[in-house]
C-alpha cells in the first residue's frame, strides 16, 4: 500500500491533503478516472458545462505529480 493524493481541478478545486492508500499507482488511477466521471456526470445532470481541460492529478506522498488525467481522456462522444 502507498499513499496517493487525488487532486481535482474543476470549477472548484479540491486539494486532497489527507490522501488515501492504494495498492499501487494503477489502482489510484482507476479511482481518479472513476472520480472524474462522477464529477462530469453531475455537471451533465445539472446542465452545467463540462470543461474538457479540467483534470485530476495523482501525487505521491512527497507532492510529486505522477499522473494527470484530463476530463477529455475519460469521456467519449461519438457523432
Amino acid at each position, binding site marked *: 500500500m502507498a499513499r496517493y493524493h*487525488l487532486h*481535482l481541478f*474543476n470549477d*472548484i478545486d*479540491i486539494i*486532497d491533503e*489527507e490522501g*488515501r492508500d492504494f495498492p499501487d499507482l494503477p489502482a489510484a488511477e482507476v*479511482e*481518479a478516472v*472513476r*472520480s*472524474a466521471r*462522477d*464529477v462530469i456526470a*453531475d455537471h451533465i*445532470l*445539472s446542465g452545467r458545462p463540462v470543461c474538457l481541460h479540467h483534470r*485530476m492529478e495523482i501525487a505521491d506522498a512527497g507532492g510529486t505529480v505522477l499522473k494527470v488525467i484530463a476530463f477529455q481522456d475519460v469521456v467519449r462522444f461519438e457523432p
Partner: protein
Amino acid sequence: MSKAAALPDQEELMPNGHPAFRPFLRRLLQRSVLNEEEQQAILSLNGREVEIEPHRDIVRPGELTDFSCLVVSGMAARFGQLRDGQRQITAIHVPGDMCDLYSLMLPKVEWALQALSARLTIVKVAHRDLLELVRTYPAIGEAFWRDTTADGSIVAQWVVSVGRRDARMRTAHLFCEIGVRMERAGLGRRTDFDLPAIQTQLADALGMTPVHMNRVIRSLRQDGLLILKGREVQIPDWDALAATGQFDGGYLEMDMAPLARL
C-alpha cells in the same frame, strides 16, 4: 465470528446492566410508552463491550448472528456490497441506536454492519436475552417494532435521495438528517455536532466518489450552508440547508409524541 465471542462472558456482566442501555431506553421512550418495570428490564440488560478496529466489519454479509449491536460511541453503518467490493451504505447509526435489532427476527441477511468512524465501541447483546424480554413484556416487543419501523422510514428517505435527489441535495439532506438524529440522541445541536465518519465511508453513504463528495461539500461551504472542520460540523443557516436538501424531518419526528400502547 465464533459463537463464543458473540456471547457475553460471565465476568464482564455488570450487576445492574450495562450503562449503554440508558441512551437506548431514551431512544425507545421517544417513540413508545413503557412502565417502570419495563424500563428497568431494559436497563438491566447486559452485553459484551467491544472496540471495533477501523475498516473492520462487525457482521459480514450473509453471516448468521446471535447478537444485536448497540452503538456506545462512534458511528456504525449498514451496507450492501457488490462482487468487486464496492459498497453502498444503507443506514448510519449513532450512539444509542441498536443497529441491527432486525437480526432478532432475521439473524442471517445479505446486508451487514461496519464501522463508519475510526473509533467505534459497541455492546453486543445476545438475541436470547432480547427474545426473553420481548416474550415477558409485550410492550417492549411493540417498542422494538416501532424502533425498526422508524429505521425503515429512514431507509425509505435514503432511497428517494439516491434515486432522485442530485448530489448537492442528497448531501444537504444527509447532513440535516444526522444533525436532527444527533440532537435527539443528546449529542450536540442539529446545527453543531461531531461527525466522526471516515470520508470514504461517508461517500459510500451518499453513493458518490469521495472526490465528488468533497467538491459538493466545498460548494455548500462557499454558499455559507455547511462548514466542516475536521469532524466538527457547523450549519450556519439551518433553514437554507434544509431547503437545499428539501429536508422535511417528518420521517424522523413520527415519534415526537409517544404513541399509546396497543
